C-alpha cells in the first residue's frame, strides 16, 4: 500500500495517469461519441431518426453500435494512395491534426487542486500561448494533406485551409487579450481561479462570458474556424471541392482526420468552458461550506463535463443551422470585421480596466 502511494507520488507517474485519464477516458471517448452524436443530433434537428441499424446481436443501443461498426469498417477498408503523391508527406499529414487535438487538453483543468496535486496535466506559465502554438501545428496537417495528394481539389482545399487557419489565428490571439487583461495572467489555472470571484457579494460570478462577452463571441468564432467546421468549412467544401484537403484519403487514415476533427470539437468546448464559463468552478458552491472535498471535486468535474458536452452540442447545432461561407467571404469576415472588432475589444477592455480598477 505504501509502495503504491509512493509510486503514485512520483510526478511522472501522476502525469502519465492524468494523461491516460484525460485522453483515453475523457477526450477520445467524447470525441468518438461525437462522431455518432453529430449524426444523431443532426437527425433530430432534421426530423429524422438517424443511424440506428448497426447491432451486436439484438443490441442496438439507439445507434451506439455504429461507433464500433464505423471503426471496423474503416479498418477493413483499403488505404489508398494516389498516383504521383508525395508518399512521406501523405503518410504523416494525418498525424498533425491528432497531435494538435490531443495537446489542447494539456492545460485544461477539470477540478480544483488538492494540495499540490492538480487535476491538470501541466500548468505552464505561457498557458494559452501554448495553445496557439499547438493549433497552428494543425495547419500543417491540412496543408501537407492537400499538397501531397496530387489532386487539384485537395490542393485547393489545402491552400484554402492554410490561408483560413493562419488568418483566424491572428485574432484568436487578439480576442483573448481581453481575458488576459481581466484576469491578469496567461496561466490557465489563474484565469480559472479569477473566474471564481463574484460581483455584488456572491451574486454574479465573474465568468469570462460576463467580463468579455465580445471576446467570447470572437474567440468562439475563431476557434470554430480553426477547426474548419461549418460555417467555416470552405477548406472541406464538400459541395464544391468535394472533400478538400483529405479528398484522397481513405480507410484508417481518413478516420484519423475525422477523429482529429471531433477531438478538436471537444477541445474547443473544453477551452471555451475553461476560459469563459468558470472552468470547473461550480458557481455559489463556496456558500456550502460543509461540503466534503471529494463531493466538491465530483461536482466540479460534472459541471465541467456538462459544459463541455453542451458546447460540443452547440458546435454541432451550429453546423446544422447555418449555411457556410464562401472562402473569400471567410477571409473578408476575418480580416475586415473580426480583426478590427477584436482590436477594438482589446483597447476598450484596457481602457475600462484602467478607469475602473
Amino acid at each position, binding site marked *: 500500500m505504501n509502495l503504491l502511494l509512493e509510486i503514485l507520488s512520483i510526478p511522472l507517474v501522476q502525469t502519465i495517469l492524468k494523461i491516460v485519464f484525460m485522453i483515453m477516458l475523457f477526450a477520445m471517448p467524447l470525441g468518438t461519441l461525437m462522431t455518432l452524436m453529430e449524426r444523431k443530433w443532426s437527425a433530430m434537428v432534421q426530423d429524422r431518426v438517424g443511424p440506428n441499424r448497426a447491432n451486436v446481436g439484438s443490441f442496438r443501443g439507439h445507434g451506439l453500435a455504429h461507433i464500433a461498426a464505423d471503426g471496423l469498417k474503416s479498418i477493413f477498408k*483499403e488505404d489508398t494512395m494516389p498516383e504521383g*503523391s508525395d508518399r512521406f508527406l501523405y503518410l504523416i499529414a494525418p498525424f498533425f491534426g491528432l497531435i494538435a487535438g490531443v495537446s489542447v487538453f494539456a492545460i485544461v483543468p477539470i477540478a480544483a487542486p488538492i494540495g499540490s496535486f492538480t487535476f491538470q496535466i501541466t500548468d*505552464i506559465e505561457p498557458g494559452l500561448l501554448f495553445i496557439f502554438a499547438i493549433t497552428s501545428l494543425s495547419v500543417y496537417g491540412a496543408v501537407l494533406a492537400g499538397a501531397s495528394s496530387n489532386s487539384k481539389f485537395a490542393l485547393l482545399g489545402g491552400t484554402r485551409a492554410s490561408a483560413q487557419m493562419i488568418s483566424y*489565428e491572428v485574432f484568436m490571439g487578439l480576442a483573448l487579450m481581453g481575458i488576459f487583461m481581466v484576469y491578469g495572467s496567461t496561466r490557465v489555472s489563474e484565469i480559472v481561479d479569477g473566474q471564481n470571484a463574484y460581483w455584488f457579494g456572491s451574486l454574479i460570478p465573474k465568468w469570462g462570458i460576463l467580463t468579455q462577452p465580445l471576446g467570447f463571441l470572437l474567440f468562439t468564432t475563431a476557434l470554430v474556424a480553426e477547426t474548419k467546421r461549418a460555417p467555416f468549412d470552405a477548406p472541406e467544401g464538400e459541395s464544391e471541392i468535394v472533400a478538400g484537403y483529405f479528398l484522397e484519403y481513405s480507410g484508417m487514415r481518413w478516420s484519423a482526420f475525422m477523429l482529429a476533427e471531433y477531438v478538436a470539437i471537444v477541445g474547443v468546448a473544453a477551452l471555451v468552458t475553461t476560459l469563459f464559463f468558470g472552468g470547473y468552478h461550480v458557481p455559489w458552491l463556496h456558500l456550502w461550506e460543509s461540503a466534503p472535498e471529494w463531493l466538491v471535486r465530483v461536482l466540479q468535474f460534472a459541471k465541467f463535463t456538462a459544459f463541455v458536452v453542451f458546447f460540443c452540442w452547440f458546435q454541432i447545432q451550429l453546423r446544422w443551422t447555418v449555411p457556410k461561407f464562401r472562402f473569400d467571404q471567410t477571409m473578408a469576415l476575418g480580416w475586415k470585421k473580426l*480583426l478590427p472588432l477584436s482590436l477594438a475589444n482589446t483597447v476598450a477592455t484596457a481602457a475600462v480596466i484602467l478607469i475602473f480598477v
Partner: protein
Amino acid sequence: MTITNDYLPILILILVGIGLAGMFTIIGLVVGPKLRTREKAAPFESGFLGKGMEGYRYDVKFFMTALVFLVFDVEIVFLYPWTVQIRELGWFGFVASMVFISVLVIGLAYDWKKGALEWE
C-alpha cells in the same frame, strides 16, 4: 517547477498523438486489403482518369495572406506582455500600446486600401 516537470507532459502528449495516428496508419496498412487498380490509384478528377495537379500554381493571394499574417501575428505577440501586466503598467503602458496598436491599425488600413484583403 522545473522545465522538465512542466513541459515533459506536453512531450508525452505529443507522443500520444503520434502514437494514436501511427496506430491508425499501421492498422490500416496491415489489415486493409490491397487491390490497387489504375482507376483507384488515379487522383480524383470527377470521374475521369486525371493527371493530378500538374501545372497548378498557387494563387498569389495565398502569399499575400501569409505576408499579412506574418506581420500581424508577430506584432500581436509583442502585445501579450502588456495585457498581462496592464495594471502594473497603468496609463503609460496604455498610451504606449495605443501607439503600437495604431501602427497596426494603420498597417491594416493600408492593406485594406491596397486591396490585399480583397480576394479578387
